[in-house]
């Protein structure tokens, strides 16, 4: 079983003095998958990646690559390679020398090096760029060379530290697709860290959402989006309308959540079997789950006034204000363009099904409010 996983972490902890950067993380990454670690800056994801690469040693726990522990193995002996945030291409060498660097260190003979370098450059789509200097390359080309420099060594795992962060938006969108395709073709296990949820969702087979040194949830992108297990995941992955409320009366199928502003939101009992009356909860509803003047499920229905139309092509939305509670919400516009003539000041009826409401119990731990999972 063990060799089914290219990479495994067992209860990895990293402390910096009193600060715990990585707190008891366990993960297994199957061979050939694209695994992303998604989290806000300062959540410990870079520390985790640096421990995988060998630049930092865990305070406790074990890291296994292809079934054997790599604790105490220095970075230059680990079968993993890293694409750095700013790529770290060697400016004192040309493209071919950059790609050949790792092979030279292994003492591979010259003919094989040349052959492999040309092969790898062709594979990343830059077959004739060998003699070029690094500063002659565009951002996207540098990206591909940085990946080629690692791939030529045929690592068990390729670690990527937000490598798309420095690119402009258009190129970033393009590189997302390209990276995904590349990973598909070569079948190397990728571990990708990012704070950009769209990068993680688009490219990954599995995403781990990380917060304050811990994994909040690990799952397929669809899973994270449609079935968030914690309030943090619900708030961090995708857009959400958010309220705080108190669990009120239990109805036949639904639970009423009373908002302090006087309103009420219905949630499904079957989705939240554990909620009890009087609990303080965070309530989330996706902007696209809400229908405008619609016929679908109408468990929840409010009247609201349009404050702002945020036109963004297929991803257009409107900001509205609940007429009763004064709560501000975002509602996605259907991509059919049905509400193209909606204007600020218009009054609309908003409806959504109780099963679209997600509630998470607020718990108070050591004086700090944290969100516990209810599922």
């Amino acid at each position, binding site marked *: 079983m063990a060799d089914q996983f290219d990479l495994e972490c067992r209860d990895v902890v990293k402390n910096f003095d009193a600060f715990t950067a990585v707190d008891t993380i366990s993960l297994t990454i199957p061979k050939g998958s694209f695994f992303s670690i998604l989290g806000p800056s300062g959540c410990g994801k870079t520390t985790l990646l640096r421990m995988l690469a060998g*630049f930092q040693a865990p305070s406790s726990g074990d890291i296994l690559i292809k079934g054997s522990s790599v604790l105490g193995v220095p970075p230059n002996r680990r079968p993993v*390679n890293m694409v*750095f945030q*700013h790529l*770290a291409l060697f400016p*004192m060498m040309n493209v071919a020398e950059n790609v050949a*660097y*790792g092979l030279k*260190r292994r003492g591979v003979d010259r003919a094989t090096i040349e052959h492999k370098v040309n092969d790898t450059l062709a594979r990343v789509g830059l077959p004739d760029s060998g003699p070029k200097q690094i500063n002659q390359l565009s951002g996207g080309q540098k990206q591909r060379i940085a990946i080629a420099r690692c791939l030529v060594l045929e690592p068990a795992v390729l670690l990527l530290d937000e490598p798309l962060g420095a690119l402009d938006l258009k190129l970033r969108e393009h590189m997302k697709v390209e990276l995904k395709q590349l990973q598909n073709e070569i079948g190397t296990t990728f571990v990708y860290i990012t704070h950009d949820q769209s990068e993680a969702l688009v490219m990954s087979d599995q995403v781990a959402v990380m917060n304050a040194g811990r994994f909040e949830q690990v799952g397929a992108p669809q899973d994270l989006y449609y079935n968030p297990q914690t309030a943090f995941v619900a708030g961090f992955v995708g857009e959400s309308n958010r309220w705080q409320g108190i669990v009120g009366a239990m109805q036949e199928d639904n639970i009423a959540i009373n908002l302090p502003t006087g309103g009420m939101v219905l949630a499904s009992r079957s989705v939240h079997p554990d909620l009890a009356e009087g609990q303080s909860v965070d309530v989330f509803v996706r902007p696209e789950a809400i229908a405008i003047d619609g016929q679908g499920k109408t468990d929840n229905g409010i009247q609201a006034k349009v404050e702002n139309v945020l036109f963004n092509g297929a991803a257009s939305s409107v900001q509205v204000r609940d007429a009763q509670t004064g709560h501000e919400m975002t509602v996605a516009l259907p991509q059919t363009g049905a509400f193209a003539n909606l204007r600020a000041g218009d009054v609309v009826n908003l409806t959504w099904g109780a099963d679209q409401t997600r509630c998470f119990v607020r718990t108070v731990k050591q004086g700090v409010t944290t969100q516990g999972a209810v599922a």
Partner: protein
Amino acid sequence: MTNPAPVTKGGKTSGTIRFGAVLLAMPLVLWLFLLVILPHIDLLLVSLHERISYGKYEFSLINYIEFFVEPLYWNTYVRTAVMSIMATVLTLVIGFPVSYYIAKMMRGKGKSILFLLCLIPFWVSELVRTFGWMILLRESGVISNFLQWAGIADGPVEMLYNDATIMVGLVYTSMLFMVVPLVSVLDSLDDSLIEAGYDLGGNAFTVTRDIVIPHAMPGIASGCIVVFMLTLGNYLTPNLLGGKDSLWFTEQIYTQFITRFNWESGSAFGFLLLVLSSLIVWFGLKISRQTLSETVG
């Protein structure tokens, strides 16, 4: 009819700018001309004179011929060059790890303190610093007394007046001028390049050779040029620590000018020293594949 006005205005503006530029450049031009070019022209002219009798001079190459014929001058010349190169290399070999430690291993406050420690000796004049070494190393000095007290030496030990001592003094005097450019150039090296080097299978030796040193080359070159020139033109340190036998070329020049009052010969020597330092710096830049503009800029 109305066209000429802007033209005149434009002309006037550029004239003002040109005048301003000339004014700004004046100190540099004056400095170059009065303190560098003029004395050297004079030096060259004087060196090409031969004194026939009182107040009578003639054009002649005798001063240069004398230099090449007299083995003492010739030996001193070569010895000064070789010792200066050795001092430069030693300063680099000692200064590089020190600079690397300051620039890459230390963070925040520790870094500035270490850097300051390199600077502190230079708050004292070179003369006083050299006397410091003499207090330590002379026959009745601190180290000699300690060795006798500890029973390692039977009698007083003289550690002054030999080549090793000159070398110690020269390296000590030059260290800061090597460390400053090296620290600044190593500071500019992105840590992730070093990490990438290790990540791709390099070890301490290959990462230093393939990544750190190529990156630091401009700093190494500029540090070496400064140290070499300071050492070659140093008078105080070789003279005090090496004594009578130090045989430093600047001493020969001093002797010609001051003791023998032979300005013609002294000028020729001065000119030869200039040629020597220019040649060696040029050669050094050639073999390290650096250009002067890269090194200075």
